């Protein structure tokens, strides 16, 4: 979808008109709470620069494309808060590598999208103090999913060419993609640079894309993937032309249906929809078999939360009213000052995760919780690797339920909230690339998971979903 538009801009059409329309539209749907900040001035400058570069003979693979950036990713000079009140006022002095690559490719940054505070949620309702939850574009009484909630919402809601950049720690790209009825690609850990990302959990965070069309996801992933000297964990593996796999067909593709993902706790309606997709793939020549991943099914949720919270509690230690964001009058001792700022500006879920993460790393508990979780993570990775010896992609529903209404989510306990991630935390823990494909453009997603650095197989499988 975006390729037609990009071609027109590359051929000389001024992108300023589409960019202006984007801001008009964003204003009209302001009450959906998709943005923490819009960037019309920056976009105007970038659009002008795109025209100049094209006139000078440059080829720009994302010429004039409006792109939104999840708020946890730094954009130079633009307030970047990761959805947290504690970072209000923080203006990064540099672009995240992913943002710089998008700009270099001719994209136009139109705004920062709303999210659960620091990514701490799966429904988009754990917003920071003073932020409002994003509403589902298909039914505003329901949630968008999370934590890339605003990204999922605007991607579905906008009528214009657009791709959203999201971030996933435990499922935060595919979850809102499924709930908003769009495509969401979370790459292999280290496939996309994290330089300039406000970390939630360093060993789990990945940056990816959400789009209305799978080809749009592919176009953007080809630009943002690859080695970055600013991020030691990025891979030097070559980046394939993902778009070339979309029409490859699924004949001979070995698809493994995850047995435990169709068990108790998953809505029958969702199982039926995902089964219809699997049947369709089989008709096109994919070979389907069933696999069991019991360690993932039983332990991925507690292991994920222990690792994520332990890493998060250390990452959030730097937010104390000194170097970034919120400050307060300088009263009392350092400890009293730090405590006052953190207590006032962190939301309830951030506090809960800091407490749990700090507890799990305390002397006497560290080996039993944090270190043990890291060892079971090894078992989980080994279990996936074994399955990939005889399968190309795994298939499951993305989410076990359709997007709930806000009132129902509010009634869930924190643990019940965490259990909603049961289908997405496995691939995230193992750093495996995964893709959510919307079924009939509704709010049900089918999720494909591939081995490390095999994103192209996801595009091949997704391309076969028609």
């Amino acid at each position, binding site marked *: 979808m975006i390729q037609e538009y990009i071609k027109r801009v590359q051929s000389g059409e001024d992108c300023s008109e589409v960019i202006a329309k984007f801001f008009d539209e964003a204003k009209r749907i302001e009450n959906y709470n998709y943005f923490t900040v819009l960037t019309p001035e920056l976009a105007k400058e970038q659009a002008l620069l795109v025209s100049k570069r094209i006139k000078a003979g440059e080829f720009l693979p994302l010429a004039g494309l409006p792109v939104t950036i999840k708020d946890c990713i730094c954009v130079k000079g633009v307030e970047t808060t990761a959805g947290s009140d504690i970072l209000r006022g923080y203006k990064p002095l540099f672009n995240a590598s992913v943002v710089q690559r998008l700009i270099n490719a001719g994209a136009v940054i139109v705004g920062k999208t709303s999210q659960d505070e620091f990514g701490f949620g799966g429904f988009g309702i754990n917003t920071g103090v003073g932020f409002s939850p994003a509403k589902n574009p298909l039914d505003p009484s329901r949630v968008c999913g999370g934590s890339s909630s605003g990204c999922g919402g605007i991607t579905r809601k906008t009528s214009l060419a657009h791709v959203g950049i999201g971030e996933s720690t435990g499922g935060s790209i595919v979850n809102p993609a499924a709930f908003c009825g769009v495509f969401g690609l979370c790459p292999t850990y280290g496939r996309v640079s994290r330089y300039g990302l406000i970390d939630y959990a360093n060993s789990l965070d990945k940056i990816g894309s959400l789009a209305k069309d799978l080809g749009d996801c592919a176009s953007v992933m080809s630009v943002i993937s690859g080695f970055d000297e600013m991020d030691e964990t990025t891979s030097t593996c070559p980046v394939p032309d993902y778009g070339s796999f979309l029409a490859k067909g699924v004949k001979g593709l070995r698809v493994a249906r995850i047995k435990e993902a169709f068990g108790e706790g998953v809505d029958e309606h969702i199982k039926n929809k995902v089964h219809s997709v699997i049947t369709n793939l089989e008709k096109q020549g994919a070979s389907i078999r069933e696999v069991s991943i019991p360690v993932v099914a039983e*332990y991925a949720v507690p292991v994920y939360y222990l690792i994520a919270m332990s890493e998060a509690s250390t990452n959030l230690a730097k937010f104390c009213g000194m*170097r970034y964001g919120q400050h307060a009058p300088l009263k009392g*001792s*350092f400890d009293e000052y730090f*405590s006052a700022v953190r207590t006032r500006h*962190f939301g309830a879920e951030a*506090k809960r995760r800091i407490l749990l993460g700090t507890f799990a790393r305390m002397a006497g508990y560290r080996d039993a919780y944090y270190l043990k979780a*890291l060892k079971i*993570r090894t078992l989980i990775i080994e279990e996936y690797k074994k399955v990939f010896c005889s399968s190309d992609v795994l298939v499951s529903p993305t989410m076990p339920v359709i997007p709930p209404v806000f009132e129902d989510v509010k009634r869930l306990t924190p643990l019940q909230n965490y259990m909603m991630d049961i289908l997405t935390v496995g691939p995230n823990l193992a750093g495996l690339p995964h893709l959510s494909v919307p079924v009939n453009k509704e709010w049900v997603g089918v999720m494909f998971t591939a081995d490390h650095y095999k994103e192209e197989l996801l595009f091949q499988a997704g391309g076969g979903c028609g």
Partner: protein
Amino acid sequence: MVERIASEVEMISEQTLRQVAANSRLVLSDEEVKAFLVQLQEILGFFESIKNVRADVPASFIPVSLSREPADDVARECLSQQEALSNTQSKNGYIKGPKSI
């Protein structure tokens, strides 16, 4: 299938929670302590299941193996002092903090 081992369930006490909050530089009201204690006990009770797993394997601190050599330790252009202080409360080129003495 993973091997299971027996273990005892540990629960967080109010005293430990208050200590954890102090370590985390968070001040909790009595109401918050009451609410968090119930929630954390439920969550930690759920986490206990991992203690039953025998995992005589190395820990995975990251999910992929890194085979590259670390980057060379070479000085490069960095932020000016003014830029580095632009998001802070500062005075005379230094970050301002509470009195320490």
